[in-house]
């Protein structure tokens, strides 16, 4: 889960990584007291290319700063609305270097990456003569101060600068480990003309699954969100309900079993010429309430023309699923076609529940078809696409 630059820098300060003095502005006519000019104003969005899009500006006085703030706030950079601007003292750059700590997906170990060439994309840095240097650690291993100095020494620093760079390396690694991060990147780490160090940009990628043990993040205003980007309103609702949900731009609501099949389902819909309206995941063993809430999210979406559903009863049982579908239908009398398939644990019991409800209230079930294990899932998807008027 990516943090905004201003959030990452709050975490940096807590970890003792030096950042330029800054404030966050969320409104026009912001109070810019105690600001030392010149400053850099940076729109707080995840998408790259802020500079080219005019969302990074410099200002030499309050008037200029206010002008830029007014011009940026509320604008959109790609899909993202600019809601905050980081106003930061401009640093007199002498050198820009690269320092990061991350998890290596190949060796499954934490590592420190450094380069004398900072200030550009990591891919570009990697192309430079002196490639990125990588130092691997074992899981659970501490970084001794001498190791950080050794790295700074191998980077070619000496004297006070070596000590300073080593300090940042040590703290970046400790931040990775102590806050369960996937990535902590300082790019560039700027050395100013007086030899002081500043993290001029800051990238932190947290492990959302470990946030339960970092309660202090919430105190800092850092809460769960997409890996990159903000949630839509419907995604926010789903999140509050505990349902992994992503809005897509099609018209077929997808009500799958697990995440893995959810991913396959949107592929298959697209494969057969349909357009999925969402990704969704019921999680391990959803309660009936959760299943009904999931259906509601789709039915209430005006874009959705038909719903594709599938339940392979594993940890989540077919009878529970059937009960939830029946209760939702009886209570909400949805008017959108629902084409589904049910198989697996407690399939017979589930089918009995569905048949009984259908017999008692055939009027509510006329647009609802629930296939069994002998119908390939592709056929169910194709039928859903037809019902949505596609193909």
């Amino acid at each position, binding site marked *: 889960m990516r943090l905004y630059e201003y959030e990452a820098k709050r975490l940096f300060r807590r970890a003792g990584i030096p950042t330029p003095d800054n404030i966050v502005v969320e409104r026009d006519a912001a109070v810019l007291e105690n600001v030392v000019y010149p400053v850099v104003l940076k729109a707080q969005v995840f998408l790259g290319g802020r500079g080219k899009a005019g969302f990074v500006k410099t200002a030499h006085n309050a008037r200029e700063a206010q002008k830029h703030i007014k011009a940026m706030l509320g604008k959109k950079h790609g899909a993202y609305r600019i809601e905050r601007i980081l106003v930061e003292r401009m640093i007199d750059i002498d050198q820009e270097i690269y320092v990061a700590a991350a998890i290596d997906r190949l060796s499954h170990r934490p590592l420190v990456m450094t380069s004398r060439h900072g200030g550009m994309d990591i891919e570009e840095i990697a192309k430079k003569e002196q490639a990125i240097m990588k130092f691997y650690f074992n899981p659970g291993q501490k970084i001794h101060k001498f190791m950080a100095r050794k790295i700074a020494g191998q980077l070619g620093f000496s004297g006070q600068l070596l000590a300073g760079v080593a300090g940042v390396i040590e703290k970046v690694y400790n931040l990775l480990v102590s806050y369960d991060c996937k990535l902590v990147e300082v790019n560039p780490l700027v050395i100013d003309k007086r030899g002081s160090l500043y993290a001029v940009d800051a990238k932190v990628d947290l492990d959302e699954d470990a946030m339960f043990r970092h309660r202090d993040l919430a105190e800092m205003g850092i809460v769960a969100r997409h890996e990159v980007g903000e949630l839509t309103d419907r995604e926010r609702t789903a999140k509050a309900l505990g349902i992994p949900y992503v809005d897509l731009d099609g018209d077929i609501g997808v009500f799958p079993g697990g995440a893995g*099949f959810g991913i396959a389902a949107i592929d298959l819909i*697209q494969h057969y010429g349909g357009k999925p309206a969402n990704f969704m995941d019921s999680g391990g063993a959803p309660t009936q309430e959760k299943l009904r809430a999931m259906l509601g999210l789709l039915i209430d979406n005006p874009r959705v023309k038909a719903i594709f559903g599938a339940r392979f009863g594993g940890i989540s049982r077919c009878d529970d699923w059937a009960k939830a579908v029946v209760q939702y239908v009886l209570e909400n009398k949805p008017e959108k076609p629902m084409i589904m398939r049910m198989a697996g644990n407690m399939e017979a019991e589930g089918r009995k529940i569905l048949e009984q409800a259908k017999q008692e209230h055939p009027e509510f079930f006329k647009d609802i078809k629930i296939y069994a294990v002998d119908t390939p899932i592709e056929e169910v998807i194709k039928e859903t696409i037809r019902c949505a008027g596609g193909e």
Partner: protein
Amino acid sequence: MAIIIDKGTQTIIQGITGRNASLHAKFMMEYGTNVVAGVTPGKGGQKVEGVRVYDTVQQCMEDHPRATVSSIWVPPAFAKDAILEAIDAGIKTVVVITERIPIHDMLMVRHVAKEKNVMVIGGNTPGLISPGKALVGMLPTITFRPGRIGTVARSGAVTYYLANSLNLAGFGESTSVGLGGDPILGANFEDVLRLFQEDPETDAVVMAGEIGGVYEELAAPYVKEMKKPVIAYITGKAAPQGKRLGHAGAIIEGTMGTAQSKIDALRSNGAYLAETFSEIPALVRLAIKERSG
């Protein structure tokens, strides 16, 4: 001999007193799995579905020294501890049902497991099944038939649909293994492919991957080495970038871990690529014919 679990393999269940674990303990035993004991700290002495509950894996192993497989059903905050406990007590295969285990915890688990030469499957695995012999996990047994196709997939539901497609076409499975949907896994595709390659009861392997991570790409060179054919199905082509699709593992980071990069790596190393579940049985038939021909 099926891979990993077979008829009679002694298995224990950590977290057995939980609602899901106790339900699936029952299913496993009904299927014929030899569940010899359960472990839940603080609940030693209880019984679940007729199975004795111990406080620690060590105490459990004293009474059941031949247990080799444990499945983990505890909440994510306790998963690392439970897995390390199983390894410490001498368990040889740990099947981690728990999902969304913190990444740094899994790094530590992998590190210790490697040192002790223990196979950890998961986290967030639906488990594995050797049809007609044994089940560890929560796969719906109704879907699986004994046969000579090995399957290995990241996702649980995809494992069911694979089996379903194969069965509708008359195939059955030697063993079906769910690797799990978490971003850092214990066993990966290559580990399981190696077991199937050595398994005399397996003729071909179907592997199903998805966006995120690099386990599919890493397995590609071994696919080329294998004598048995591999049919691959990769999902996530339609997935939007930078959004987490339920599985924490299913997120595209930069140019790594896209569906296309996985498809390219596997195809260029000789795997047969399927685009839908329905295509898989035909490819299996073709592959077996080509390899044996």
